[in-house]
């Protein structure tokens, strides 16, 4: 990782364990939307055999199957880098299995609670049924409002503790529990929108960027905005 502080450092945590379906899309979109505004970026891939650097700006965690998820949680806890980075003010976007493991606890295959990284006040367990399909939710006004669209594919159910706030209210799909979707706490964001959550939601990508670089110039609407509208229209 470069030590040039004018570079925005996007850190993808454990692409070997937490990358099931298009998770790379979030890093690609952040990089593109930053560079379109003249912000230089660096995408750092941190594999599970490597230490997690603490000087990153935006940390991304993707989805994973049960065993890789447990392994990733264990390694992140013993490494400690991600927690220290958030204490320094880094932004985090964690999706699906990644969302669960940054919480206080999550369920293993038999729904026994395993300890999470503890940077988001949520507790997750296994639901009766698998939530698979399009999801649409209304984002809380304190984090910019608007609507998010995505695809969910998980069996988790998530309860928020007092320090975390729901990211959005579910209009279609299950999310946390059928009524809320995702959570945030300080600069840490989690969601059940799996894989490429940011490509379909350019405003959410800009929200993450603005945490680290401040006010952003608007970009002309392009394919991302069009996809956002099209997906909502297709399912609502």
């Amino acid at each position, binding site marked *: 990782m470069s030590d040039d502080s004018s570079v925005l450092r996007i850190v993808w945590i454990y692409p070997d364990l937490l990358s099931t379906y298009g998770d790379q*899309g979030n890093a690609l979109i952040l990089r593109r939307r930053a560079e379109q505004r003249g912000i230089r970026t660096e995408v750092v891939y941190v594999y599970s055999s490597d230490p997690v650097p603490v000087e990153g700006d935006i940390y991304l965690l993707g989805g994973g*199957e049960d065993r890789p998820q447990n392994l990733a949680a264990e390694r992140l806890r013993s490494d400690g880098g991600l927690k220290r980075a958030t204490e320094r003010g880094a932004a985090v976007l964690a999706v699906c299995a990644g969302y669960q493991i940054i919480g206080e606890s999550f369920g293993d295959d038999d729904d026994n609670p395993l300890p999470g990284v503890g940077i988001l006040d949520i507790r997750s367990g296994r639901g009766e049924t698998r939530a698979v399909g399009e999801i649409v939710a209304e984002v809380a006004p304190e984090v910019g409002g608007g609507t998010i669209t995505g695809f969910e*594919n998980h069996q988790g159910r998530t309860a928020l503790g007092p320090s975390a706030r729901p990211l959005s209210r579910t209009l279609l799909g299950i999310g946390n529990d059928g009524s809320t979707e995702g959570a945030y706490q300080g600069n840490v964001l989690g969601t059940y929108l799996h*894989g490429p959550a940011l490509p379909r939601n350019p405003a959410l990508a800009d929200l993450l960027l603005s945490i680290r670089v401040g006010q952003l110039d608007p970009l002309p609407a392009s*394919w991302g905005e069009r*996809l956002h509208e099209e997906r909502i229209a297709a399912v609502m």
Partner: protein
Amino acid sequence: MSELPLRAQLASALGKGAASLSRAARRGDGSVIGGRVALKVEPGLLGKLSRGRRLTLVSATNGKTTTTRLIASALRELGDIATNEHGANMPTGHITALAAKPEARNGVLETDEKYLPQVLEATSPAVVVLMNLSRDQMDRASEINLLAKKWRESLQKSEAHVVANADDPLVAWAGLGARHATWVSAGQRWKEDSWCCPDCGGHLKREPEPHWECPECGLARPEATWSVDNDADVVITPDGQRMKLDLGLPGGANRANAAIAMATAVTYGIHPKQSLPRLREIRSVAGRYTSVVTNGVEVRLLLAKNPAGWLESFAVLGPPRIPVILAVNAQIPDGKDTSWLWDVDYSVLGDRRVFVMGERRTDLALRLETDGVAFDVGDDVAGVVTRIKAEQPEITKVDVIANYTAFQQIRAAYGRVQ
């Protein structure tokens, strides 16, 4: 086959009747509906129809239809065979294929990954061919680690001889469950699903290519006796002989498929010198790799259903002057989730003209924009070709890469070309 019990004979005859009805009613090629009727009448039918035959099951995420066709072609050296060449790869399709050829002693059945353990148990095959496992239609398919585990467990209980790809860690781990195996170094272009040891979850050491091993539990790539030299277009047999392939099908994936077919044929006593000329004759498989001519332009159809398939398709594209049309749908057979588009690196298309079409062309458009690849949007192949012809009259060839239902729609528009 005349000793088939009466009930099974009846079921088989009923199945055949239903298949002809289905064809007559133009509902499809009849392979699924016939088997479904037969299964209702006699649940043990698949096992009964398999008895006394020497069967090969072929399973993988990608390339199973093509490899089944290659093996079928090689086995015809020994006479008539039973095979599900229309790609109906679940038990109902297998029943239809076997019932259609009651006298055939040999057979080769393409088998859906999820159904492999069940079909393996029902048919007691002589050979099981395993090629690759990678992420595919995650909204409805099983997790591939779980699939590999089930493959391995069912092979541990079986007498079947395995012909498998040593270079794909998940496949090799499954195949190592079998008592007898022939290992083929069939390559693995897509590696994103095999960073971790299938046995213990450790981070695999993956060099020098194609070697792999787990530093934590010691699981390692089995020694392969067959391999392919892609640069020289050569297959190397277990006795070290280098045979020029010169196939009618394009690309490295098909060289590997051919090596696997030749290795499978050897288990039937067919020498590579006999099988290879038969493999060369195949130029398209159920529309895959076939060309249709529209507006004076030769349009070649490539099917790609998942990230690994798209990578293989990029590798067989013509030179950069040949435009490519990408078509993506998200119907149930395609998977309703298009997230996988973000696993594919499209920047390799940057030096050619690109068109996007299909129900999810907006997803493709954003994906290409993000990789900095210029593109145009189209509605159908004929329209795109007309536009290319008007703007670049010198163009005589166009490649199309499409996922499942998008591919079938294009194929149907040109008379279900084979």
